[in-house]
Structures are given as structure tokens and as C-alpha cells.
């Protein structure tokens, strides 16, 4: 929580806050936009991956001779085609191409490039792999048992002093908090403690991973594909392939959804290795089943949460223990979960402990506010039970305990200006909250927190000869960010929105940019665009001063033009951006601004949700009849796309709450690797989602922007759970709350009650 104060404008916006049509829209409604799988190259081969049918096995041998001999096969790669890498990419290398062991069903262990897909498929069948099948574990609670099969025999829990003397599946322990929780619980009039479980959910982007690699015989290479971060892809692939970063140029295609799932590499280094070996471009696309089996879903979890309150409803202590199953390799997501656990509350005594647990499942990837929705399900469920126990309105309960400016967050820093209280109040005042819930339906509320991030950012802004402007960004646009980029540049330069276009530059055209994740793009790009525009404006004012032969400080920039200002400035006609651009060749050359920054000062955000649900008492089916999101945007640059983030996050959370989950058989294989059985919400499953934007400016951004992309997925699991509790009288401590689970809970309550 830095003390950076960049805030320079909070009112009188002309372009920011309006809802113009996105610049890339026309290509997306006409089918012309080119996504990951839409590229071709001369002489292109098709690459396919051979994947493990076993959840855990030692690779005794791989025999590719027969496959290589098949007519039309141009290259086969295995782990032996990749050298060793630094610790940073150790797990990535092994996930991309298994060596020694396969760690989950779907783990890649060889790949083929052939003249077409049919030949490549045939070749995969001819690769002979000798496996020594090992015992496996996919359940988080079984994975932490002392006699559980070890995913990694050399894993000793990090973060425990002294270091354990035996290996286990627990990769790391992390702890956050302050005060004395035992003392706090001693002061409590009421304590509720409960355990919760959640299943893994997949990001569910509609576009499967796809890329096209072209490795030249001089050691240079180009890569095209769908990714949230093409600089990260470049740097990772360069190391995995053992080539200089400058020799690999990565172009980000349009991207058909990511939600965190396209922040790592899967096919990209394999396609490059195949292309290098075959001497031809290689295109690879993933099947939907492989997306489910081999790309990162979230953690599954087992959690215990305990909260104590006074009879007036003030929390005296809060304690949580989180076990997150992160797949075959160590993640950091229980740590993030532990940090977020109690971030909504101003607490004197708080502790959260997270454990990262390995299992024979795909390597976990980030999914929208990674780690936060899971623990929020547990914490916000208990908060709901506490409010019920003392007969207090659940929003009033949260208002009584809400974190405010000056409170120490449970994860460490002291909060600056934050918008949780305002979001809770706005939820309370929302027509949804005062409308009576329909007969037989139940209402639930919950709150959620996410950090939001900034990070390494590089922007180039060019003023063209006619005074129009091109902004080059290095972050793939997943949800309309080009529109926001254009709005910010237009606002700062005082020119019409339509005079600015934003593009996503390739990795060789612009310096490094952190990935489009962490809700950073509009925040961090925004800072850099504003600074780049201000630099261009300063240059244009200096040129006007020179033309007018007046001091530079006697020129101001207003409404897209340089104007003389002040007593001694003289009387000159304003020079517009087009005038200055048109004469640039006589005044010093092209006009441009650029800015490079490690953008700190991202503002945390809070989201408060209200849901009405109906529960079919005979089948246990939960349906959502009304849903409202209230969230702090700091400043909404393009309100349509901010609402879209709120609505999309809520819909994903609703899906996770009610239906989405990874189901493994006793054989350690995923039972539902397709959209039919991994049941994401469809249009007929959802109501309209009311999105209420509130704006509490973040001082770390010139216009007050906070990230908006992630926070909305944090509250829905608990919001739905609390609504189900209202509708049925039963607490379902498990996600997804699929019909059999809900039915069992209802019937269990009948039997015991």
C-alpha cells in the first residue's frame, strides 16, 4: 500500500466515463478478427501432443522410431529435446514435456509435427511408451495424509522451521495476521467454527490454446498465439529453447478469453521445438478435452474457519486454515487465499495459515482473483451464520466490522482510502435489497476483496502527420481495453475519441510489459499513456513557443491545441495537434511520447453481491432469480466494460457455486473433460445481472482508477451459499452446490431435525 499520490483529475471528464464503441469491435462482429487458431504460414505443419493416460507413472522408455518412419511425419520431440533451465522455469519445463514421471492424466510427454492432422494423429498412435504405473492421489485431504503417494519424492515443506525431515505433498506453509487470536476468542460471546470444501473450477475460456511457431535456420523465431502475456511467453520460451530473447518475436493474436488460464505456456515451446527440428512452421491447437485435462484449473480446497463475536456483533478474533490442492507442482494460491481471507474486516486479532498441496492433477493456473473466491466462500458463510445467530442484518453486520482507511489489513499493510463501507451502503440502498424476496426463494449477500496489481509497463504514443494518434500497448486486450486506452489518450490530449487508435504491439516493437492479469491493464497502461501524452504535449507546447518566439511557459495545452497564455505571451491563433503534426518536419521531427514505469499504487477493491435463489426441494437444483453486484471501480473509464467485468465475474462465480467442478474417478482420471459435463452457465441459467459502479478514487492513479477485472468473482460462492441457506434453512459447506449435494444437505437436515 504505497503512499503514491498521482491523482490529478477527478471531475470534468470529456471522454473518460463515456461509452464509445470499441475500436476493435467491427472486426469481431464480422469474423475478421484473427484469434490464436486463425493464422497460417507457408509450408505449415500441424503439431499434436501425446499425453499420459495415467495419473501417475514413471516413464521407463519412449520409442518414437515407428512414428518417425511414417510418411508425412517431419519431427518428433520429447523431453530430451529441451535442455535444463533455471529454477524459475523448472516446473514449467517439466509441465510442458514430462521427464522421468508423468504426474497427471493428460501430462504431455511427446509431440509430433506432420503434414496434416490425420498423419499427426496416426503418428501419435505409433509412439510406444513403457510406463511403470504408480499410486496416485487427487483429493486434497487424502494428499496430506502421512501415507499418501508422493507426487514429488524430493519435496520438503517450505515455510516450516525446522525444515521437516520427511518429504510430503505439502509444498509450502504461509501465515498472515496480527494480534492474539486466543485472547480474542476468550473475549467472544459467540464463536462459530466450521469446515468447508471446494472443487476445482476451470477458467473455461471458449478459445482453446493455439499457436503458430516459425523457427528459422539462423536461430531466430517468430511465434503467434493467444496469450494474456506475450512478453512472458517470449522470455519463457527463449529460456526453454536456449535462444536469445532478442531472437524470438512473439505476436499476441486476439484472445478468446483467458481469466488467468493463459498466463503460462503449454504448446508454445513445443511448437517452437517442433518447428526448429522440422525446419517448417508448426501450428498447434488444443482439443477441449486437453484444455480440461492439462491446463490449469483452480485449486480444490479443504478449509477450516473460526470467528468469534461479541453479542453486539463485533468480531473479536478470526482464524482460518487453508489447504489448497495446486496440482502436480507447487503454487502460491493458498498464500494468496490466506492474505485475502479476512481482508474485508478491520480486526484486532486475526490469523490465516495456508498450505500448498500437491496432487496428481494438472498444474494450477491463476483464475480471476486466484485463491480469493475459495476462502471467501468459507469466511463469508460463517459471517452470515454469525449475523443470523444474533439476528442482525447481514449488511449491517459487515458495516459494523468493515475495514476502513487506517485499519491494518490482515495481510499486513494499512489501508488508504478504500470503498468497502460505501459498497455495503450502496448494496443496502439498492432496490434489490429492499424488494421482498419471492415466496420460497432465499436471499444471500457476501463481500469480497482483491488486491489489484500494477507492474512493468511500457507505452508508446505517436502523433501522426494528420494529428491523429496511435497508442502502442504491450498487453493483450481481452475485454475491450483498447477502448479505454483510446479514451485515456483522448482525454489527456483533448482530442476526439475517434482520432485515437490503440494497437497491441509485438514483443520486438515495444519494451517489456507484465501480463494482462491482476486487473492491471487499465490502471498501469493508463498511467503510462497519461505520462506519454503529457510528454508529447510538453514537446508540442515547446514547438509552438518556438514558432511564436515566446517562452515555453507562456504556452498552455487546451482542447487539443497549444495556446498562448499569460500577460506577455502575445496574441496568436491556437495551433492544433494537426497543425503541429503537419509542420513537425520543420520543428524537430516526429512527435511522440513514451513512458516506462513499474506502476505501483494499484488500489484494492471490494465487491458486495446480493442474490435471490430458488431451490427445488425435490431435486436440489438451485436457480438464481435475481443478482446484483456493487463494486468500487475508483473511476470507470468505459462504464459498459466495467459493468461487463462485474457481470462476467459474477456469472463465473455463480457457475462455480452451483455446477462447475472437476470430478475424478478412483482411477485418477477426470470424468468430465467437456462442456457437456463441465457445466458452465448458459443464457437460460441466469437472470440479468445488475451492475452498480461506485467510484472511490485511487490516489495511485491520475484519474483514480482501480482494477475492476477480478474482484467480482470473489463473493458469488458465498452469496449463493447464503441465499441457499435462506431458502432451505440448510448450510451447504461444499462447492459446487450441485443438485445431489444440496438434496443430501436438505435431507440430512430433515433426518437430524
Amino acid at each position, binding site marked *: 500500500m504505497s503512499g503514491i499520490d498521482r491523482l490529478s483529475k477527478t471531475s470534468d471528464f470529456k471522454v473518460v466515463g463515456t461509452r464509445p464503441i470499441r475500436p476493435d469491435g467491427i472486426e469481431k462482429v464480422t*469474423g475478421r478478427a484473427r484469434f490464436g487458431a486463425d493464422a497460417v504460414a507457408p509450408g505449415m505443419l500441424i503439431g499434436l501432443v501425446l499425453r499420459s493416460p495415467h495419473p501417475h507413472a514413471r516413464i521407463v522408455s519412449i520409442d518414437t522410431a515407428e512414428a518417425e518412419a511414417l510418411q508425412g511425419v517431419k519431427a518428433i520431440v520429447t523431453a530430451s529435446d529441451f535442455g535444463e533451465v533455471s529454477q524459475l522455469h523448472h516446473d514449467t519445463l517439466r509441465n510442458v514435456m514430462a521427464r522421468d514421471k508423468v504426474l497427471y492424466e493428460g501430462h504431455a510427454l511427446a509431440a509430433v509435427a506432420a503434414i496434416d492432422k490425420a498423419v499427426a494423429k496416426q503418428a501419435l498412435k505409433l509412439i510406444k511408451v513403457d510406463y511403470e504405473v504408480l499410486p496416485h492421489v487427487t483429493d486434497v485431504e487424502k494428499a496430506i495424509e502421512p501415507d499418501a503417494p508422493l507426487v514429488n519424492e524430493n519435496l520438503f515443506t517450505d515455510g516450516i522451521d525446522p525444515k521437516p525431515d520427511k518429504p510430503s505433498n505439502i509444498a509450502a506453509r504461509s501465515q498472515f495476521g496480527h494480534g492474539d487470536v486466543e485472547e480474542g476468542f476468550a473475549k467472544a460471546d459467540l464463536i462459530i467454527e466450521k469446515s468447508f470444501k471446494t472443487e476445482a473450477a476451470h477458467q473455461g475460456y471458449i*478459445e482453446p490454446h493455439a499457436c503458430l511457431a516459425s523457427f528459422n535456420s539462423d536461430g531466430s523465431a517468430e511465434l503467434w498465439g493467444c496469450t494474456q502475456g506475450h512478453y512472458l511467453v517470449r522470455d519463457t520460451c527463449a529460456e526453454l529453447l536456449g535462444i536469445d530473447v532478442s531472437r524470438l518475436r512473439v505476436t499476441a493474436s486476439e484472445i478468446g478469453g483467458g481469466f488467468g488460464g493463459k498466463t503460462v505456456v503449454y504448446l508454445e515451446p513445443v511448437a517452437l521445438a517442433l518447428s526448429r527440428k522440422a525446419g517448417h512452421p508448426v501450428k498447434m491447437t488444443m482439443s477441449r478435452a486437453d484444455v480440461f485435462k492439462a491446463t490449469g484449473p483452480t485449486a480444490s480446497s479443504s478449509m477450516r474457519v473460526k470467528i468469534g463475536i461479541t453479542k453486539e456483533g463485533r468480531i473479536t478474533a478470526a482464524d482460518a486454515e487453508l489447504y489448497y490442492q495446486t496440482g502436480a507442482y507447487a503454487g502460491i494460491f493458498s498464500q494468496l487465499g490466506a492474505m485475502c481471507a479476512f481482508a474485508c474486516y478491520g480486526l484486532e486479532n486475526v490469523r490465516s495459515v495456508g498450505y500448498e498441496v500437491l496432487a496428481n492433477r494438472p498444474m494450477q493456473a491463476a483464475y480471476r482473483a486466484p485463491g480469493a473466491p475459495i476462502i471467501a466462500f468459507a469466511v463469508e458463510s460463517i459471517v452470515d451464520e454469525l449475523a443470523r445467530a444474533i439476528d442482525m442484518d447481514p449488511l449491517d453486520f459487515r458495516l459494523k466490522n468493515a475495514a476502513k482507511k487506517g485499519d491494518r489489513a490482515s495481510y499486513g499493510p494499512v489501508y488508504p482510502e478504500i470503498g468497502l463501507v460505501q459498497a455495503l451502503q450502496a448494496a443496502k440502498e439498492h432496490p434489490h435489497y429492499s424488494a421482498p424476496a419471492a415466496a420460497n426463494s432465499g436471499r444471500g449477500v457476501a463481500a469480497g476483496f482483491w488486491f489489484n496489481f500494477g507492474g512493468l509497463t511500457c507505452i508508446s504514443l505517436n502523433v501522426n502527420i494528420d494529428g491523429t494518434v496511435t497508442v502502442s500497448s504491450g498487453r493483450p486486450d481481452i475485454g475491450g481495453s483498447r477502448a479505454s486506452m483510446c479514451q485515456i489518450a483522448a482525454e489527456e490530449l483533448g482530442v476526439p475519441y475517434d482520432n485515437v487508435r490503440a494497437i497491441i504491439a509485438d514483443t520486438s516493437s515495444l519494451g517489456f510489459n507484465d501480463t494482462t492479469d491482476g486487473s492491471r491493464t487499465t490502471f498501469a497502461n493508463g498511467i503510462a499513456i497519461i505520462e506519454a501524452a503529457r510528454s508529447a504535449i510538453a514537446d508540442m507546447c515547446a514547438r509552438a513557443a518556438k514558432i511564436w518566439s515566446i517562452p515555453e511557459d507562456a504556452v498552455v495545452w487546451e482542447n487539443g491545441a497549444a495556446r498562448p497564455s499569460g500577460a506577455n505571451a502575445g496574441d496568436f491563433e491556437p495551433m492544433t495537434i494537426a497543425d503541429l503534426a503537419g509542420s513537425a518536419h520543420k520543428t524537430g521531427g516526429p512527435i511522440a511520447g513514451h513512458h516506462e514505469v513499474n506502476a505501483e499504487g494499484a488500489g484494492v477493491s471490494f465487491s458486495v453481491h446480493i442474490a435471490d435463489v430458488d431451490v427445488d426441494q425435490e431435486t436440489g437444483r438451485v436457480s438464481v432469480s435475481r443478482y446484483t453486484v456493487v463494486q468500487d471501480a475508483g473511476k470507470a473509464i468505459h462504464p459498459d466494460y466495467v459493468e461487463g467485468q462485474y457481470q462476467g465475474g459474477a456469472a463465473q462465480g455463480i457457475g462455480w457455486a452451483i455446477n462447475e467442478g472437476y470430478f475424478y474417478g478412483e482411477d485418477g482420471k477426470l470424468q468430465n473433460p467437456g*462442456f457437456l459435463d463441465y457445466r458452465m452457465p*448458459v443464457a437460460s441459467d441466469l437472470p440479468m445481472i445488475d451492475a452498480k459502479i461506485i467510484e472511490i478514487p485511487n490516489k495511485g492513479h491520475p484519474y483514480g482508477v482501480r482494477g475492476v477485472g477480478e474482484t467480482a468473482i470473489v463473493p458469488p460462492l458465498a452469496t449463493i451459499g447464503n441465499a441457499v441457506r435462506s431458502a432451505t434453512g440448510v448450510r451447504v459447506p461444499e462447492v459446487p452446490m450441485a443438485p445431489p449435494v444440496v438434496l443430501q444437505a436438505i435431507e440430512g437436515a430433515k433426518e437430524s431435525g
Partner: protein
Amino acid sequence: MTSVHVTTTINGDPAEFLCRPEETLLDVLRDRLGLTGTKEGCGSGDCGACSVMVDGRVVCSCLVLGAEAEGREIGTIEGMAEGDELHPLQQKFLEHAALQCGICTPGFLIAARALLEKNPDPTETEVRYWLAGNLCRCTGYDKIIRAVLDTAAEMRAS
């Protein structure tokens, strides 16, 4: 390996191609004819990203063989605008911000146009059920449904 020779009509124009008997219409459109506006999301008919029209019906082109296009009228997203003029649905999708990433958009537009041709005055529920075969992971459907309802109202008024 014997290929099949297929003569068909795509977006009103005559077309012919050779394909293998097992190739899907989706693969033919994308890989043989360069019509990549039709997207593959699942290959199993569950996501609707590959929706096209075959003789006036919305179908998942991943579930139709290329050879089945023989003698049919195929309609894809590339044929939806008339020259420079967007179909009202395309325009309303832009105005309502009914797309975020845009990968599902062609399929939604194809399916929504078929709905409005059949039912110019659908209720919200009818729109939701008609489009239940098209997955969108970004928007929560809210702005898509509004765009379709608004288009229907505007088309009825004109």
C-alpha cells in the same frame, strides 16, 4: 486417401472444394476455404462457437461433415453484413458492448439472426433459451440479451 468433391453455396456464392470423408464442415470452412470467422470451441457441439446456417437452420458446423454441404446453402459470419452495412444485430452488439473477448460473437450473431427471422418479437426468456446452445464466458449474457432484444425492437419499428 480418396477425397470427396463438393459443390455448394456459401454466403450466396457458388463454392466447391475437395475434402476427406471424415472432415467436418467446420474444418473445411476454416482450413480449406479460409473462412476463419467460424470458431472452434469444443468440437463436440456444446459451445455453439461454430454455428453456421445450413439451408436456413442453425447448426454446429463441427457436427456436420464437409461432404454434407453438397447442394446446400451455407451461411457464415462472413456473409452477415451486406457490403459496408452491418446487420442490425452486429451494430447492436457493438453499441451494447455485448462482446468482451469476441470469440463466441460470430456464433451468437448467427444464432440470434435465426431467432429474429423466426420470431421478430421474442421475450427475454425466449431469447435466453434460443441462445442456450451458445456459450459465452465473458459477459454473463446480460448485454448480449439486451442487444438482441433491442435489435428486435428496432427491426420491428423499421
